[in-house]
């Protein structure tokens, strides 16, 4: 049956916020295509999850339920959704672009002879799906060609979860056939790395350091600015990968998500994974030598120049203003 299906992801017993962003995307795509939107929830016990999702403007919510889907595995989720998609024959399958989806959606699409159009930030008539290329420096417009379902995953924050319209959907069940031997990987419970002693999530001011700092010996320049501002020091992934600052100071999709009043990005070009993590910032300032760096697309204020000169000057200016 012709329809758009949104695949919801569970987080701590509830549908994750980014899943509702995917619902909003499904509803937007429905407006472009005239198709109805449904959702599917996956797990071993999905009753509560289905009830939560059914409060949105969806035609149907299906519980894709099996004891072997209690913990996420790529094999289990792929098998379950493959059977469901072969039975439903959807036109579009929409996912939230999460680490879990990245782990199985490309596999599922390939099994059905399809390709996931991943990490989509926008839709247009056609439909055309827009995703970022070259670390956010360019946008690419993609079209799905050929027969069969079109698989799309939607970037976190591309739409707002509260854009998903409310409604009342009918709930039904679908039981896939899965044998234990078909699940080849064995996941543990998730765990935290080192104790999170730095809570960047609630910091009001943050100075973020990126590759532009060039050398760990230059970190104190950014630290002095942070101290002058009364700000926390954060960093982009490469800085933490190199061990120049501890992992607990990493900002971005794999690190902490921040929402300060002021975020000052120093020598950060603005890769997608970093920008996703700073979306909640009230005011963004970028200092970078490259005027084309993607960070300037989200910055309120910018200084184009050598951070080795600009940052110390800014530290002095902040100190002077505070006196």
């Amino acid at each position: 049956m012709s329809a758009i299906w949104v695949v919801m992801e569970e987080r701590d017993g509830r549908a994750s916020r980014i899943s509702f962003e995917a619902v909003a995307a499904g509803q937007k795509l429905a407006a472009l295509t005239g198709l109805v939107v449904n959702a599917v929830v996956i797990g071993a016990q999905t009753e509560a999850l289905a009830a939560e999702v059914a409060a949105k403007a969806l035609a149907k919510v299906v519980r894709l339920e099996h004891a072997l889907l209690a913990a996420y595995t790529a094999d289990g989720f792929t098998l379950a959704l493959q059977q469901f998609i072969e039975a439903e024959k959807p036109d579009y399958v929409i996912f939230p672009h999460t680490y879990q989806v990245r782990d199985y959606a490309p596999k599922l699409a390939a099994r059905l002879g399809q390709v996931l159009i991943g990490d989509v930030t926008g839709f247009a008539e056609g439909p055309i799906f827009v995703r970022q290329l070259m670390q956010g420096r360019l946008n690419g417009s993609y079209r799905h060609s050929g027969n069969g379902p079109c698989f799309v995953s939607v970037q976190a924050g591309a739409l707002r979860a509260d854009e998903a319209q409310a409604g009342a959907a009918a709930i039904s069940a679908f039981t896939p056939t899965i044998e234990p031997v078909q699940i080849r990987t064995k996941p543990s419970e998730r765990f935290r790395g080192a104790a999170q002693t730095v809570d960047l999530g609630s910091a009001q001011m943050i100075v973020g350091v990126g590759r532009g700092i060039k050398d760990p010996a230059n970190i104190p320049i950014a630290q002095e600015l942070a101290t002058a501002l009364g700000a926390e020091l954060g960093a982009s992934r490469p800085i933490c990968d190199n061990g120049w600052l501890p992992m607990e100071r990493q900002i971005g999709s794999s690190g902490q998500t921040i929402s300060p009043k002021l975020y000052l990005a120093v020598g950060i070009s603005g890769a997608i994974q970093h920008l996703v993590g700073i979306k909640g910032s009230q005011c963004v300032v970028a200092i970078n030598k490259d005027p084309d760096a993607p960070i300037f697309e989200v910055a309120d204020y910018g200084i184009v120049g050598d951070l080795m000169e600009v940052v110390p000057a800014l530290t002095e200016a902040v100190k002077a203003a505070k006196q």
Partner: protein
Amino acid sequence: MKIIVAIKQVPERDAQVRIDAAGKWIEESGLQYALNESDAYALEEALQLKEKHGGEVVVLTAGPERVGPTIREALAKGADRAIHIDCADLGSRDALGVAKLLAAAVKPENPDLVLTGLQSDDLGQGQTGVILAELLGLPHSSLILHVEKTDSGLTVKRELEEGWFRTIELPLPAVLTIQSGGNKLRYATLMGIKRAKTKEVRTVTAAELAVDSAPVAVLERVALPQKQKSTQILPGNPKEAAAALVEKLKFEARVL
């Protein structure tokens, strides 16, 4: 353990990219290229596994002639040999099309483990390794920071969002996509660079691998992103710009 590492050559991180005349991709002439960052970590993981458990590391890449130096770099760091899929139309193939090429080259090698970076710095799709596993019929895990060989296969550490991790056990043979930062990258030594010159690089053409190339996901157009915000760029020398910024933050944005 026989390990294949699938690597990609991508435009250098700081390269100035211009859109080509057709508006379908970037202007490639004059661009500097480098080994994709997370692929460098995949290679490092492979070399460390070989050092611990013995075996062979084979690098595999698809691309035009210009990928030569990237292959040599991987060999200089310690890979034993290389397979180059000579392919001038990589950009017009989608993730499934590229994975089909790689799978066709991997199959006859019967490796114990296939590693690749979690995503490329140019297209950023993060799909090749996962699709490759599906095409080879092998179990996989993605976003891996740490790999340990056990009696029954592998135990790997997978990164999740927001500072969480998960440990996953999987049997061999398997495919892993490697996240950056799990290991410290090595540099090629002078001796390594010398040795690389004598190592085997086998070239196969895409045509010889006989896989279809018609994309399902078609990149129709590339464009500069529209600004999400109007950025005020503060002019002047560093001191003037810094003073102007503090003024703005205090009296306009009111965040100081």
